[in-house]
């Protein structure tokens, strides 16, 4: 924070999921909203809670715990949805991710982001962009574009050719 490298520091929003703290680029965060029961979509993976109406557009909601293979937590008044913009293909999509709680906003220097080790993370490394140490804590920086993209959206791209 006090050296020249602050120039390339980006702001990140962090949130808590089970025991870990995760971060997303704040520029990708559109809004944070409370729990609103989504409409389930038949025959879709369990982690897809369904879709909600976000000011007239239909937005899919993903339960990050389930996406990462963690234990399910009941939804309630404390449940938080972080609405983010993800890039898939050449298209920007909006989706909501269900997290335990929003934590803080940090400046993280590009240089402080370490590559993901092959092991040591509880979640699949395809969703991890890197790790960063902030205030003695390890924060997992998410590759949010991969959340919907991987197997899920692959089907769409195919069906469109």
């Amino acid at each position, binding site marked *: 924070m006090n050296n020249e490298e602050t120039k390339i520091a980006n702001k990140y929003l962090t949130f808590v999921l089970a025991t870990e703290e995760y971060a997303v680029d704040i520029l990708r965060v559109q809004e944070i909203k409370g729990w609103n*029961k*989504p*409409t*389930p*979509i*038949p*025959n*879709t993976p369990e982690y897809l809670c*369904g*879709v*909600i*109406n976000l000011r*007239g*557009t*239909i*937005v*899919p909601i993903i339960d990050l715990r389930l996406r990462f293979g963690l234990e399910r937590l009941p939804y309630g008044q404390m449940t938080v949805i972080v609405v983010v913009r993800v890039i898939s293909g050449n298209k920007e*999509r*909006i*989706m909501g991710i269900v997290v335990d709680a929003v934590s803080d906003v940090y400046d993280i220097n590009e240089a402080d982001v370490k590559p993901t080790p092959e092991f040591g993370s509880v979640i699949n490394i395809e969703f991890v962009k890197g790790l960063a140490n902030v205030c003695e804590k390890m924060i997992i920086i998410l590759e949010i574009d991969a959340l*919907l993209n991987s197997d*899920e*959206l692959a*089907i*769409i791209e195919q*069906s469109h050719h």
Partner: protein
Amino acid sequence: MTEVRQLFFEESFENLDMMESSLLDLEIGAVDKELINTIFRAAHSIKGGAGIFKFEHVINFAHTVETLLDELRNDQHIVTQHLIDLLLRGVDTLRALLKALQTGQEYNPEAVLVCQQEFTALLITPMSPPPEHAHPHPENTHAPVTAPEVIPVGWHIRFKPYPRLLQTGNDPINLFRALDALGELQICADSSQLPTFADLDFQNCYLSWDLLLTGAVEQTAITEIFEWVEGDCDLEMIPLDKESLAETRIVMDKALEASLAKLAKVPEKIISPAPSETPVNPKLSSIPIVNEVLEKPAHNEHLSSHINEASSIRVGIDKIDALINIVGELVITQSMLDQVGEDFNLARLEQLRSGLAQLERNTRELQESVMRIRMLPISYSFNRFPRLVHDLSTQLGKKVEIKLSGEQTELDKTVLEKMSDPLVHLVRNALDHGIEMPEQRRAAGKPETGILKLHAFHQGGNIMIQISDDGAGFNLERIQQKAIDKGLLHPDENPTVEQLYEFIFHPGFSTAQQVSDLSGRGVGMDVVRRNIRDLGGTIEIKSEIGKGSRFSIRLPLTLAILDGQLVRVGNRIYILSLLSIIESLRIQPNLLSVLAGKAEVYRVRDEYIPILRLYALFNIIPSTTQLEQGILVIVEGEGQKIGLFVDELLSQQQIVIKSLETNYKQIHGISGATILGDGSVALILDVAGLIRQFYSSNRVHTFSELSVGAMT
């Protein structure tokens, strides 16, 4: 300015399309003045518009084309195929030029030049340079400059209008005002010709003037001012040097004094109220407001669109007017509700109710009108086909006449855009594989010229587009053989005609003996059908060998709105398009049969309808699994029926369709979503998709066989 520029491009492309279709309508040997005029006008407009932006190449080229058209119009040419082809190429060249300018890309100047030379070669009148643009200041050229003299220090102008001058809308005062801007002006009026009041015809001008303009003014500047009254007056311009200027001034001063003495009141410098300061006609006051409202949508559209690929709609003024009317009504309703709400008591409940009913009606009307704005006539798409057919048939050595009908049928802009490629493909196919070579046709006892028809019409809540030809028709035997060769069909099987047609839509299936460069472009019939299905439409084939084929495309009228039936399954709400529902009924156990121990069918009159339990398909816990306790909704899609088993029918309402794909993806059996009154999302069922899925599963054979068996 970019907006105007964009408009110019849009308009020019429209003009080019019009030129093209009119050229294709021209008959060889004849001179259809009306048609040629239309073409001429279009070329002329392009030239005029290009002038604004100083697109020299376009101006030049359009001018050449226009000159040829002018000669044609004046019977200096006869219409030949060569002439039409050349003009069509001219249209193409202009289009390419404009496209290049629009996108800021390079174009091939040599190709333009070659084409232009071909035009010039045909011209009878020697090619004059296009007007205006050769000279940046045209107004300087048409005033005859007397001599290369020194600029005088002043002018004595004798201006004697003919009585009719005022009737041209020219006002001498304005001319003087303009002169006054050039230098110092002294005016002396001669009223000697003024009749007595009784004889005065106020339409006529009786005055004449002697004007003294002091200043180094070029003659052209003065001629320019009097340009518009040339022929309506006697005009004399005498250049003055220092001495003659002084003399004239003395003469004028004297004359002026004399006049003053006579009239007591002649202004030395003319100051008159500007015409616009006169009271404004009260009728006018409403116009500017309306105008402003009219301008806004167009304006916004241009802001949001990209500079190059603008997506704007031309909207008929009647549609806008309808919108404005409804908005007006809405405002009234709102103020009425405001009033009711201001001090509300139960006695006013009825008023509130009727206000709300009115609001509902307004909202619905508004919605309909807005949707109507999205509707465009299919001619936008059809109009390109005459050219395509012309070019293709020439290339193939076939004779084809194209007949369009129902071009005014309107459909949603998005549907129109997405239908464009499939239609092109079907038309290409018809020309390529359908219509035979002239000699083949003659041998078959048919006229040499084949007929290709494009027909659009409304049917129920759908748009139908039919592409039919009187060509060879589909050879079912060959299709069957090919299907066997490709391993899609067992040699022992005995497929129905419909099943054979189905193969045509199979990826990679082509019945043509050789793939020509025309239709073999990688887009197959499977893509055509998928595009149509994406729009919620269907395609059907009818064909008779030796007589021709017909493709019928059925499309929903509009994409964005549908009349929906809400149904409940467990705690979920789904929506069915009312158009797909044939009937809903409560199940009577005695009409129910279970085939092959598994598949359930229900007898409705003399038909056996397979039952699809929605809860099972969607993995939902229903209120009941007992068929007689729920509702069977019989729906139809792509000619096949199915009974959807749901818990309960809820209300019917108009719903606005939202895409799931915007942020997520397409889901089998779901065509979209909508937002219900309480803000929650409900999914819209894709009936055709559900039926397709149902029939393509392994149950289908059992079914069609058994239900046929049961019926006989």
